[in-house]
């Protein structure tokens, strides 16, 4: 057993003085959210709960309620996080109910859904929460039975003392156990003893989802609640000049039309305070339809913004950002990207003597890849409930990082941060978009202004045209080959609007004697944000397409070509700062080669392969395309992933399938362009999303089995699919694909 200090997660073990009664429940009855059980399996709720720590409480009847600390957006942590606690607590999963923890900085630290960090960062604290509660139950039993604690064993929620033949269910000992001091250190199970982790468990919310129960942010209801909508500038580079609210205000059901300003003057923004339109107009009324009608009557004048700089206090410290004035267009973006690509960039890494290697090369391959801005298009548009009363605020919003928006709300409202109570209902998708919670700030400000509980709802059009996009990127790769077609040097120069996508220390850095990485960026007033595997979601496609072309030029099998480079990186790495583990990287490729039957391409399909490392995990795909009337049909994707221990395999598989499908959709169709600052797509009649007919007919997901603590899962399978699509399309069409989106023809749907 591993002895581990509980102090690592010390603050996570605070117990409230009163017994918890279901958290700061405002409107939803979270506890009713029992798992996907048959009627008979649902245990009666206990008469009394005993709180063991901030992650769990045990009922007098043995039901255990586990709080899941991070917000849920479809990654299924509401199942997998409690599984981790239940494992160490040693209980029967069918006696578990799951509750969403509210925002509580002291109890739960950073409640962060994003960066594929959830399971990775909570792995230890959740195990400790379960193990320390188990320890307390054992101590209580030892006390009650007057036997040494070491002689007590547990199984499935029952305490046993073999020699005295005593036994007690957890529920019976819970009251005494809750009085025991939380231990300083606890023993964790060995991986091989896991009974819950590593076995597929059904989504605890599935039953509620398929029966349409209220659970999403947009479903929030409260007595007396008004509906609010916003009107933001029609173009990036514009801001509010004046509003004539008379016509809108006179519309039926309308309570008020107010202008709001999201930041107080002098407020120093954090990294997730991105907001292209901090000054907007809000329409508030009784019902959504009435507000929508009034929105059409609103007369607002907008004016151009002046250029400005701002200091952002982000994760990487303080950064100054320059925001230019003007109305930007995709045509001028393209010209600027070409220009920057052709100039020397900022050198980020240089190994060996790349200039010499290129000079001496027998052959140089140079290719440029680009990808457009993308909108997240979560199916649930941005929305937030807020009720501000005096110096207190209640919030319920679909949000990825509550911890980072509370200071912004507090500043905007002029109230202390500790007076803000926040619930995190399920998000109808996030993909990075709901990490930028300006809509929550807006809801709070509107509620304060109109002095009523308010639910702010973005229309799809508001959502798609509000910014926080995946940036537009471009990368030029050059490879030097010697007489024998061996790769002797690699040069990458990458940039974007407004950030560079480059990861200079990722593969194939470390595998090449001569390597040069440069970057550039172009300032913009179009706002960007994290989008499922930020930067990687472009770099993987560019790099993996390029390596495919180089492998071909070298006359090598594309998988073997990568494995040879990885062998070099493992045995004799160049440089000290290589981000990836060459052995794990090679491991997924080997597993993929085996599972995809790589050497046996099925008849009538064209195969592409691609692999990538990001978010501490490794993912690789083989994608089979068949051409049908000139259109690509994805027959099958075989995927291999190394993300360490897989807590809930079927849920992880579902996520990988989603990442693959999402990636194919974005590679085929994803694109947002601009004209004079105006996004050229506003809704799904223009923005083509992947639909069932374009989704893979079959997806197979394989995990590398190991005992490494879990690493990222939601994002890693996404970036490499872009390369697999490009490489399969090449095989299918004979044409290399350099510019996303790859398939532009519009399909008719609806």
């Amino acid at each position: 057993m591993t002895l581990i200090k509980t102090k690592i997660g010390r603050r996570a073990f605070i117990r409230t003085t009163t017994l918890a009664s279901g958290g700061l429940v405002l409107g939803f009855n979270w506890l009713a959210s029992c798992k996907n059980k048959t009627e008979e399996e649902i245990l009666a709720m206990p008469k009394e709960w005993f709180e063991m720590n901030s992650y769990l409480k045990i009922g007098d009847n043995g039901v255990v309620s586990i709080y899941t600390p991070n917000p849920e957006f479809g990654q299924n942590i509401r199942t997998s996080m409690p599984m981790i606690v239940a494992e160490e607590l040693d209980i029967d999963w069918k006696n578990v109910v799951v509750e969403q923890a509210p925002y509580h900085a002291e109890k739960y630290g950073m409640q962060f859904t994003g960066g594929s960090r959830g399971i990775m960062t909570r792995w230890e604290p959740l195990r400790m929460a379960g193990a320390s509660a188990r320890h307390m139950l054992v101590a209580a039993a030892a006390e009650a039975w007057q036997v040494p604690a070491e002689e007590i064993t547990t199984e499935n929620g029952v305490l046993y003392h073999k020699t005295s033949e005593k036994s007690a269910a957890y529920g019976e000992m819970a009251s005494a156990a809750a009085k025991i001091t939380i231990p300083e250190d606890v023993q964790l199970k060995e991986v091989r003893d896991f009974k819950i982790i590593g076995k597929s468990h059904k989504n605890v919310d599935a039953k509620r989802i398929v029966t349409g129960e209220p659970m999403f942010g947009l479903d929030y209801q409260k007595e007396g609640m008004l509906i609010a909508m916003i009107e933001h500038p029609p173009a990036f580079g514009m801001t509010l000049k004046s509003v004539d609210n008379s016509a809108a205000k006179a519309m039926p059901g309308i309570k008020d039309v107010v202008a709001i300003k999201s930041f107080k003057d002098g407020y120093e923004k954090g990294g997730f305070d991105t907001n292209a339109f901090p000054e907007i107009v809000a329409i508030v009324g009784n019902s959504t339809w009435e507000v929508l009608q009034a929105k059409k009557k609103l007369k607002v004048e907008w004016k151009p913004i002046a250029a400005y700089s701002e200091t952002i206090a982000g994760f990487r410290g303080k950064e100054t950002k320059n925001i230019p004035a003007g109305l930007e267009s995709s045509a001028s973006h393209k010209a600027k990207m070409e220009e920057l690509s052709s100039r020397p960039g900022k050198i980020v890494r240089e190994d060996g003597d790349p200039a010499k290697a290129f000079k001496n090369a027998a052959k140089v391959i140079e290719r440029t890849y680009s990808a457009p801005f993308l909108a997240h298009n979560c199916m649930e548009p941005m929305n937030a409930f807020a009720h501000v009363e005096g110096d207190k605020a209640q919030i319920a919003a679909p949000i990825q990082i509550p911890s980072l928006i509370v200071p912004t709300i507090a500043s905007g409202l002029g109230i202390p941060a500790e007076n803000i109570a926040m619930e995190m209902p399920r998000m109808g998708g996030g993909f990075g978009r709901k990490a930028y919670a300006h809509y929550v700030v807006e809801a709070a400000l509107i509620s304060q202004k109109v002095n009523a509980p308010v639910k702010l709802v973005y229309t799809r059009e508001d959502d798609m045209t509000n910014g926080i996009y995946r940036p537009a990127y471009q990368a030029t790769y050059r490879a030097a080959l010697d007489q024998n077609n061996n790769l002797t040097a690699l040069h990458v120069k990458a940039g974007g609007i407004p950030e560079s996508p480059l990861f200079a220390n990722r593969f194939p850095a470390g595998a090449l004697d001569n390597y040069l990485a440069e970057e550039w960026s172009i300032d913009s007033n179009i706002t960007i944000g994290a989008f499922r595997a930020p930067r990687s979601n472009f770099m993987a496609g560019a790099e993996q397409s390029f390596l495919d072309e180089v492998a071909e030029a070298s006359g090598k099998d594309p998988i073997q070509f990568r494995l040879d480079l990885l062998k070099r990186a493992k045995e004799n790495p160049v440089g000290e700062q290589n981000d990836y583990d060459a052995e794990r990287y090679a491991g997924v490729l080997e597993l993929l080669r085996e599972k995809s039957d790589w050497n046996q391409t099925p008849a009538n399909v064209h195969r592409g392969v691609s692999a990538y490392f990001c978010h501490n995990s490794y993912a690789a795909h083989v994608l089979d395309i068949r051409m049908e009337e000139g259109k690509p049909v994805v027959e099958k994707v075989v995927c291999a992933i190394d993300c360490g221990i897989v807590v809930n395999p079927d849920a992880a598989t579902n996520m990988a399938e989603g990442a693959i499908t999402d990636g194919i959709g974005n590679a085929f169709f994803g694109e947002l362009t601009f004209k004079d600052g105006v996004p050229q797509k506003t809704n799904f009649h223009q923005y083509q999303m992947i639909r069932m007919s374009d989704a893979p007919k079959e997806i197979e997901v394989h995990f590398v089995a190991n005992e490494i603590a879990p690493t990222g899962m939601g994002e890693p399978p996404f970036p490499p699919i872009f390369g697999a699509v490009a490489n399969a399309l090449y095989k299918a069409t004979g044409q290399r694909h350099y510019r996303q989106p790859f398939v532009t023809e519009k399909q008719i749907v609806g």
Partner: protein
Amino acid sequence: MASFTLNINGTKQEVDLDPTTPMLWVLRDHIKLVGTKYGCGIAQCGACTIHLDGNAVRSCQLPVSSIGDKEITTIEGLSENGNHPVQKAWLEIDVPQCGYCQAGQIMTASALLKQNPNPSDTEIETAMNGNICRCGTYTRIKKAVKIAANSANA
């Protein structure tokens, strides 16, 4: 303003509102049945799918004034206890990720199976293509539709 008597999930409901109000908002704001989702408002995503006399329709484009005495079924009324064959298949396959699109997917799928109890893959794709799943659960949805078809035919 006008008043309407609607037949929703087998219950008569009185509403008094703007006759142009789409059923989506009647359900969500007035009847407080929020299982039917808003995704686009222009009949492009399928999140708002309900049954009108058993046929799948996009409620965001369906003014309340056009309903008359037709029967409306929403996800909440699809079955007594989540035990419609389509819902059961969804649970068996554990289809949802975020879950937001799934009510609409289930309503479209259940209407399809009523009309065509044995759909081919292409027929499933054609029927389901109006429903976007941003999380990309399409392969599971298709599997679940087939399971539901088989279980209903068994």
